[in-house]
């Protein structure tokens, strides 16, 4: 696995107004890997993801994309390299799946070039790749939760970015659809060599799908590394206050968290 990093955070302090969420954060997003950010509610993991995707301006420190400060770069240029899916994004009523995925081409379009042949080809591929082509004419609000998430990932795919940041892509989905979405993320990584960063809640699924886990607590990164090294009973106690066994996942051999009663 390569250890280069195009997206980095340096001594980051993130705040909403006067309320500091995190301080002194350093992150190197490993290229071509799947990174999952885990941690209890309110630990700052979504905030970190938003900052990495330049949706939140750091109060101090820097986010660097290809060595350049991300909020100094033209946002349209950044949008050709980094795609971000916010938590539970909302599509306006009446929007079809095709409309949604077409919007992924926005950073590549100008006001006079709205539907070039290249746009059309890339959108068609994105729809096909996410298995949404048959639903292209359906309104997004008529889809099931899992299909809707696939539609949004399809849009991010049409954006054609090397890096993809997903904020809790499995929230509100039943287990089967969670697996669907995570399989899709794994294919993005495996077949298209995308770098994927996701905020996830389910620790065992995070361990199964991610190459690297970043565990956060109270705005700090406690530990990061391969799932086998990160997911230990000690860490679960320290970070989540959870008593648990960690056993090898019978299906994949990755760490499986078995919570114990308190």
């Amino acid at each position, binding site marked *: 696995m390569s250890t280069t990093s195009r997206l980095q955070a340096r001594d980051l302090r993130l705040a909403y107004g006067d309320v500091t969420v995190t301080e002194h954060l350093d992150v190197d997003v490993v290229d071509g890997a799947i990174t999952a950010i885990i941690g209890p509610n309110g630990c700052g993991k979504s905030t970190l993801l938003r900052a990495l995707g330049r949706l939140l301006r750091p109060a101090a420190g820097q986010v660097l994309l290809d060595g350049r400060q991300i909020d100094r770069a033209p946002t349209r240029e950044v*949008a050709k390299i980094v795609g971000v899916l916010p938590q539970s994004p909302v599509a306006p009523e009446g929007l079809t799946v095709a409309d949604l995925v077409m919007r992924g081409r926005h950073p590549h379009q100008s006001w006079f070039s709205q539907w070039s042949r290249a746009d059309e080809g890339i959108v068609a591929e994105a729809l096909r790749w996410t298995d949404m082509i048959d639903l292209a004419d359906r309104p997004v609000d008529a889809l099931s939760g899992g299909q809707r998430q696939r539609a949004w990932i399809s849009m991010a795919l049409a954006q054609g970015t090397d890096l993809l940041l997903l904020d809790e892509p499995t929230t509100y989905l039943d287990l089967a659809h969670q697996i669907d979405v995570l399989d899709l993320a794994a294919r993005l990584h495996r*077949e298209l060599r995308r770098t994927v960063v996701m905020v996830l809640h389910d620790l065992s699924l995070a361990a199964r799908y991610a190459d690297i886990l970043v565990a956060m607590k109270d705005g700090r990164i406690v530990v990061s590394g391969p799932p086998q090294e990160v997911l230990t009973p000690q860490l679960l106690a320290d970070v989540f206050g959870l008593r648990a066994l960690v056993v090898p996942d019978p299906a994949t051999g990755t760490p499986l968290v078995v919570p114990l009663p308190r």
Partner: protein
Amino acid sequence: MVVTVLPRAPRKTGDAVTALPLPGRVVLRAGPVSAAVPLRAIVVGVLALALALSLAVISVGRGEFPIPPGAVWDVLNGEGTRAQQHILLQLRMPRVVCALLVGAALAMSGALTQTFARNPLASPDVLGVTGGAAVGAVAAIVLGGITGGILGVPFAALLGATVSAALIYVLAYKRGIDGYRLVLVGLGVGEVLSAIVSYLLVRADLVDAKQATIWLTGSVSGRDWSNVRPLAAALLVLAPLAVAAAVALRVLQFGDDTARALGLRLQTAQLAVVAIAVALAAAAVSAGGPVEFVAFVVPQIALRLCGGSRPPVIVSGLLGALLVVGADLAARIVVAPRELPAGLLTAMIGAPYLLWLLLRGTRRTIA
């Protein structure tokens, strides 16, 4: 920069690409220019334009000195009698052209603001344009007297609209612009402005008050080319800008985070959209008064006729022109030989039509 990263997707334009069938859409491509336009929008737009122009021809023909449509065509080609030329070109055309342009500008303005705020209530009336214009115009009429005020009314309205809209934008700004906050601040300021208008009306004498009330309803009666020219010039600049702003709105309607993730410069885009919408509404109101309901109702009618996820800007403009020119014609027919302000009729025609569309439609929310 290499844009395409998908495995089977084209590496550059010109390669063979996978086609994506888009039912109900017409793909237009010419050189670097390309667009996928919904067929329904084209049909509705063409019909609205044809109807609006037909009504305009009928409208200029009506009056004490009737001119049949054929003669109207002759006059436009430089023929016809001198009397016909004078009546048509100097007396009746400005009024009808004014109606077309006022309707188009108000409706486009409403389409922009409703999409921007993701809220159908966010028409220019709420954004402070109308209220500010009303204060300016009524003050000019009441304080300046009719004769002194007439020349100054359009300008006073323009000034009032611009100042109040700017004030509301500044008051609503809090680490960016939020649609709901904008609507609430607009409603608050609007109440204050309408209180000022009431005060001015109460202390006005009867003639001024009647004049002001007609202005407040919205009317294109008695307009000449000096009223139409500034509005036409404004539309020439603002209409293309509004169409360009619609491109940003397509992304903006996903919410701030997604819009920025897709590379939109959020604050610049928001300010630009509001500025274009306010300028359109201010230009329209200063020429025709706050013709009621057009900016609110027409974009919603356009949305329901065309489908899609937001009011279409161009079709809204064409339907707005149709509504106001039709209302102005009706306003001269129903109580002929007297006439009503067009603004009375736009509400009476537009509102029931929207209600009918709402009742038979499946759309849960608006905008």
